[in-house]
């Protein structure tokens, strides 16, 4: 019985992942159709407005992922449960990936609209700082030995790094910025047809984030299990 349970644990659990990924692929196709074909072009920007349906959700998901990482880091410092540390690092990695995508898509929009790939605009600059802060988070984690120490120092750093997120969000209000404020506390500033495409994009990429976080979190827990097993094997052989 015990052996059967152990075998089931070892078997890669592909069923749930394939089902979720398949359903999500259908949603992504629907989102691509709405963003690239069904939504109307903008009066001045024409088809370039469609880049917004990728750029804004990426930026949104990135900030949300860092928020989840911040909460998880705070919870780790409070509870000292390694599960919170796993959640913090998983969400931070996805946040860093989506920040990279937001920076690339932003540059692809800026080149034809502003005439430059990059400007030192407050929104762009604070986002680049955010990218470096979270890249530093992973460099720091990689340089620390000891499970407990790595989790504790990373959690403190994660809480401090998050301070840049509200600065990124408020940068278009606090300083003179040429970056459009598409999403604010008043909602989405776009005509109805375009706002629908943007909402669809936000929901789709948040769902993608949820799937990625689930996979990444399970991976982190598995990695910790490997560390524990390696220590046991070493203890047994020495």
């Amino acid at each position, binding site marked *: 019985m015990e052996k059967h349970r152990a075998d089931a644990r070892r078997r890669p659990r592909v069923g749930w992942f394939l089902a979720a990924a398949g359903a999500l692929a259908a949603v992504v196709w629907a989102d691509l159709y709405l963003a690239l074909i069904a939504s109307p072009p903008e009066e001045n920007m024409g088809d370039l407005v469609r*880049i917004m349906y990728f750029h804004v959700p*990426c930026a949104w998901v990135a900030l949300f992922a860092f928020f989840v990482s911040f909460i998880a880091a705070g919870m780790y410092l409070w509870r000292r449960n390694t599960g919170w540390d796993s959640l913090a690092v998983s969400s931070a990695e996805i946040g860093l990936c989506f920040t990279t*995508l937001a920076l690339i898509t932003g540059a692809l929009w800026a080149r034809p609209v502003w005439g430059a790939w990059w400007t030192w605009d407050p929104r762009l600059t604070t986002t680049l700082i955010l990218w470096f802060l979270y890249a530093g988070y992973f460099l720091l984690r990689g340089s620390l030995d000891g499970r407990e120490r790595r989790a504790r120092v990373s959690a403190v750093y994660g809480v401090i790094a998050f301070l840049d997120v509200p600065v990124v969000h408020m940068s278009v209000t606090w300083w003179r910025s040429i970056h459009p404020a598409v999403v604010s506390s008043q909602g989405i500033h776009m005509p109805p047809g375009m706002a629908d495409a943007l909402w669809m994009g936000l929901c789709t990429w948040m769902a993608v984030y949820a799937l990625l976080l689930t*996979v990444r979190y399970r*991976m982190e827990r598995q*990695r910790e299990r*490997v560390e524990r*097993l390696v220590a046991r094997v070493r203890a047994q052989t020495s």
Partner: protein
Amino acid sequence: MLRDLWFLWAAAGVVTLGTLAYTVLLWMRQTRLEQLVARLERELE
């Protein structure tokens, strides 16, 4: 017009293919770790 479409398809491609590549990478890392756990557990038995 054609130039605009190039930028648009580049943005859509980067986001979609980038996310797909990251998902595949995560799945490969997870599978490798599961195999490693199985091997280490066998060694401990």
